[in-house]
């Protein structure tokens, strides 16, 4: 069984995002003056293989985010786990 996991990580809403501000400035200077906010984040894609059930994989990814992939002090994360088929 294979699962594709798509993870998005970005700074918490309450924390000033200097990169997002700079990108917004760039868009504004190109004339896109209706852009009021930009957040720059990270996108990770994991391919997970094995006999785990979907909810087990979700628990495991949650743990990965907490321990390594995100820094919960400053970042929020969200993810989707999708079955990619395979035998089983």
């Amino acid at each position, binding site marked *: 069984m294979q699962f594709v996991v798509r993870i998005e990580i970005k*700074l918490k809403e309450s*924390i*000033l995002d*200097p*990169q997002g501000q*700079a990108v917004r400035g760039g868009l504004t200077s190109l004339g896109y003056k209706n852009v009021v906010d930009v957040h720059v984040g*990270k996108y990770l894609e994991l391919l997970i293989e094995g006999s785990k059930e979907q909810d087990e994989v979700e628990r495991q990814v949650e743990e990965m985010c907490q321990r*390594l*992939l995100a*820094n919960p*002090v*400053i970042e929020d994360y969200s993810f989707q786990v999708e079955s990619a088929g395979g035998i089983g």
Partner: protein
Amino acid sequence: MKFATITFPGSNCDQDVYFVTSNILKQPSAMLWHDEQFDLASYDCVILPGGFSYGDYLRSGAIARFAPIMERVIEYANNGGLVMGICNGFQILLEAGLLPGAMKVNQNLKFVCRYSKLAVVNNQTPFTNCCKAGELLSIPVAHGEGNYYIDRPGLELLQANNQVVLRYRDQQENPNGSVDNIAGICNQAGNVFGMMPHPERCAEAILGNNGTDGLKIFYSLLNYQQKESGAR
């Protein structure tokens, strides 16, 4: 005083720190590679140097934090051992949870490499006892992710416990936008210390025109150790 400097893949200030502890302080010094679980108990101070461990991938210090030797460093710190993290070393200590808070990208999005004026906020630590309270130190910074962040309650705790050790003199001197102009903090017990500026880069007069303020940090360690062994 026995010093250990840890080298991670991508550390680039490890030799400089080692040079200061061995050639300038003339103390027994070792460089330890990250992927072995060395017994640190025989050392009096462990230093995590600056650089770009693991290419700063994901977040600065995030991957180094799980290097095998870090288990030993955490154990050593929890037993009261002196641990100092400089720049990337500071970032690793934050990721490891040995110090509170986190680092963000510099507010101006630039890698800033220049001398900075620091005010000594707490001179009652093993790392700053050779400085006067409020003394201004001139020590260079060189980082792209030194924008220290901690939430409001966390900051109040730091301030109440005198854990803010070094501040950039004012907003103008602050190279990265850090909360409360913070440049260096210690843990509540006072044995773990992290600072963004590089004291090892200004520890020898021959290196330049800005003096040897960095030596005051290293002399503080020696001074603390001497007092400790005298008290025993």
